[in-house]
């Protein structure tokens, strides 16, 4: 009886809120089950998502029972549910306010009034200047005050002219709907009760370990929630879609492994005397992938989806060419730039710059200004160089106009060159970090033993950099296997040549150009499997070598 009197208010409040959670959860699940069509994803996904919606109901029911039993787990469960409830209500409230669909408007308004940002720049400059003055002088603090004032004014001007009043009025306008009030109230109540439950550690006899645990989970929660909603969810969905004939806009049919078999189907036939062309040797539905001639016998390799195999071949080729071009120059640059010569930081920044530049912008520059066969700088330089050689040495080298983006022999190299140029800076920074971690004693000992620079590099730097090199190669390969931007931007605007169709470009084209979402999901999972296996092999090889 005494205990009942001391029952903290947060516990009955939490029980009521958990019961509300059960009701909301069940209603949500029922409404999902009741939908005629679930975003064209099919019954399976509908039942799955409906089932997921019931999980909070089950958890809330358990929390109620445990809370009544004064079990600490009831507190944790309630805490998690209320916390998630508050997050869900907040997100939904932002949706009602139109924040998610209003990003464009916000960005546009800020862009149009970006001149106000100069006020912040001026304020910062003044503040910096004030800091350089003698702090004891009143002038310094006055300038600081002026700087703060200018900064505040600039911010207010930006917000005012950016339409903060209209935006606020718009948000307030949403409170003309009961729904907005309910969601706001739910968000506040969930938050207050979660806080109330949080303060009951002593009541439930919370240990230090338990406190550390919920604090840890709390810290992790943004990432876990984001991962679940935006990564794990779509990932699972794409796995399911890969077994369907989904076109995205109508209910898919489950077709088992048909997508996988369509992509993987190959046919090996011998070109007979009656087969005028290689294509004639193949069954209907197959197209020529490759012909192999051994002696008089020509074997025709056909595929149901030639682009799957072509894209795989191109992707591996891209990786094979990218690895040396993206690592060896990066390593050499790192060695050179690790020396303590004045101005080296500028060089490091210059080499790193391409890594932080947008690939689309870079690709456009490469496409028009550098790679154009007739007006590009690369061919211009080659022409001038050829002319110089011929004029100077009396040679007669022909001026070869290389079709960097049009000659099938150079297309892949053009992509690799641009990608390597962009990634070298990043890899260089990794190598620099690795080099700076090598103990200086090793070099000093080697010098004492008479080792020259080359030997030091070969017997100290390279072996010591093994973990960095491994990391650089693994990340380069993984990025290489997922190459998309380079072919997409360099060759966009017309038909993508077969020679540049990489695996990710292929699955994008099958998904969005051919509207075959199920099939492209299958392609994505096969690519995932390939990257997984390649990385696994690398780890195994590295472990063996390290051992």
């Amino acid at each position: 009886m005494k205990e009942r009197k001391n029952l903290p208010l947060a516990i009955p409040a939490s029980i009521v809120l958990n019961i509300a959670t059960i009701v909301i959860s069940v209603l949500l699940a029922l409404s999902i089950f009741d939908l005629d069509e679930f975003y064209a994803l099919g019954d399976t996904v509908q039942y799955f998502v409906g089932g997921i919606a019931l999980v909070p109901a089950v958890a809330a029911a358990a929390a109620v029972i445990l809370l009544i039993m004064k079990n600490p787990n009831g507190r944790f469960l309630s805490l998690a549910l209320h916390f998630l409830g508050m997050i869900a209500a907040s997100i939904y409230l932002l949706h009602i306010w139109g924040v998610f669909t209003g990003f464009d408007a916000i960005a546009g308004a800020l862009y149009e009034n970006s001149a106000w940002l100069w006020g912040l720049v001026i304020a910062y400059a003044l503040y910096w200047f004030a800091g350089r003055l003698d702090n004891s002088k009143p002038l310094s603090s006055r300038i600081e005050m002026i700087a703060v004032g200018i900064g505040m004014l600039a911010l207010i001007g930006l917000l005012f002219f950016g339409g903060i009043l209209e935006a606020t009025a718009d948000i307030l306008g949403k409170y003309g709907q009961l729904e907005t009030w309910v969601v706001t109230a739910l968000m506040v109540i969930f938050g207050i009760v979660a806080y109330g439950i949080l303060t009951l550690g002593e009541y439930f006899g919370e240990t230090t370990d338990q406190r550390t645990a919920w604090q840890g989970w709390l810290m992790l929660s943004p990432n876990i929630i984001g991962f679940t909603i935006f990564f794990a969810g779509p990932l699972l969905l794409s796995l399911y879609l890969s077994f369907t004939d989904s076109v995205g806009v109508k209910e898919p049919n489950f077709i088992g492994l048909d997508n996988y078999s369509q992509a993987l189907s190959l046919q090996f036939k011998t070109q007979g005397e009656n087969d005028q062309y290689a294509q004639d040797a193949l069954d209907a539905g197959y197209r020529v992938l490759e012909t192999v001639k051994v002696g008089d016998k020509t074997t025709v390799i056909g595929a149901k989806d030639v682009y799957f195999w072509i894209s795989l071949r191109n992707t591996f080729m891209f990786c094979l060419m990218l690895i040396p071009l993206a690592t060896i120059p990066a390593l050499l640059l790192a060695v050179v730039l690790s020396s303590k010569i004045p101005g080296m930081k500028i060089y490091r920044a210059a080499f790193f710059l391409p890594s932080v530049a947008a690939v689309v912008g870079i690709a456009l520059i490469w496409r028009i200004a550098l790679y154009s066969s007739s007006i590009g700088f690369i061919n211009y330089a080659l022409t001038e160089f050829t002319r110089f050689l011929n004029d100077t040495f009396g040679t007669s080298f022909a001026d070869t106009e290389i079709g960097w983006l049009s000659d099938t022999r150079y297309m892949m190299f053009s992509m690799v060159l641009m990608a390597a140029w962009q990634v070298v800076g990043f890899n260089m920074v990794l190598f620099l970090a690795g080099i700076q971690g090598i103990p200086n004693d090793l070099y000093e000992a080697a010098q004492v033993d008479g080792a020259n620079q080359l030997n030091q590099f070969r017997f100290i730097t390279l072996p010591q950099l093994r973990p960095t090199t491994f990391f650089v190669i693994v990340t380069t390969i993984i990025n290489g296997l997922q190459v998309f931007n380079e072919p997409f931007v360099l060759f966009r605007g017309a038909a993508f040549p077969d020679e540049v169709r990489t695996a990710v470009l292929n699955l994008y084209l099958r998904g969005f150009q051919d509207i075959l979402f199920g099939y492209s999901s299958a392609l994505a999972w096969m690519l995932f499997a390939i990257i997984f296996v390649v990385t696994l092999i690398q780890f195994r090889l590295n472990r063996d070598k390290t051992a």
Partner: protein
Amino acid sequence: MFKRLLVLVILAALLLPIFAVNAQDEITLRWRTRPDNQAEIDVYQAASDEIEAAWDGVTLQYEPGGSETASYQDVLITELTGGTAPDVFWIPGTDVARFAKLGLILNLNDLAAQSEGFSIEDFYPQIMEHLTYSLDGSDTLWGLPRDASAFAIYYNEDLFDEAGLDYPAEGWTWEDFRAAGEEITALGGDIKGFGMSNWWGPYGYFINAAGSSFFNEDYTGCGLANENTVTGLDFMASLYNDGLAVPYGEDPEPVFLAGNVGMFMNGRWATPGVVANATFGWNVAELPVGPGGPSNWLFWGAYVVNANTEHPQEAWELVMKLTSPEIQGKIAGLGANIPSRVGGSGVDDFLATFADLELNNQAFVNGLGYGVAENPVWAGDWSSIGTALDSGVAAVVAGDLSAQEFADTICAQVDPFFATE
């Protein structure tokens, strides 16, 4: 006291909008089209405002859907998947069949039948043949064409003068065209006689002008297995292999704009860019007449109605308003698009564009007259067919495949894509 007063004021401010919200009972229609530039966005926005002002009870939201290079279709398809696509939207002609077969767009025939004064005869018949294709035997109308376009040869007058050539005249032939290309290329340096992009439109012209076609007569199968295909592709490939053209696959537009290409094949959509950037004398001419006679494409795209719109009647009315002669005239006045209505004031508006440059705008209108309409391929999957054709033609130009082998084998490769539907 002050705090209580403040709370009351805030509550009153929050409750006020209830009345404002309840007062709104207008229908809101969202519509979208793919503009080529900011000027077009402005004109479409103005047109939207004008239509809205004269239309009681309807609010219009115009959404410029990005440009050709900003994934217009990707966004649209994603929104259709998520159920958030606009009520009325524009799609390229080649997408109409796919969207219709997926049930994404409304059959507007019944709504059109009730519309007084509306006639499909007002639009180019080649386009309407595809837009009235029936999937189930019933009368059908899938949408109305926003505009039309055709190819022409943009030629550099300075290079023609330098080579001592007459400018292309009406009725000029492939022989004249090639001869001009040779003379201009012979000027030396980085100068090329000809340039075109590597998609189905340009190479399709050479196939069509030689007397062949991508499709059979009723568009239910491949039509490329004939000698005319060989003639067309051989002629085209020779332009590249003899060094007369900007390499196949390379964007010829910047090269032409740099003054290094004598003849550049492109659609009317390229004209504003050439007007803005060319620093040399130039004009346009009809495409040369091939052995199969004059040929061109009739490119088109259509305004269609989202199958999930809550306001089909109003959406259809919007489609009609957007394709009215007045609106088409305004869009055509920018010079990038040709009205999809045959004749009428819209065409006059188009012909009057860039009058100070004395452009041969008539070349485009003439091209539309005999142009083969861009085909959605109702009996197949155009996307897959197009991809296979792209690969094959690229192989012919690269010399990996003879034009004869292409003609002999391509149908076996693309026929399965006709059977998939």
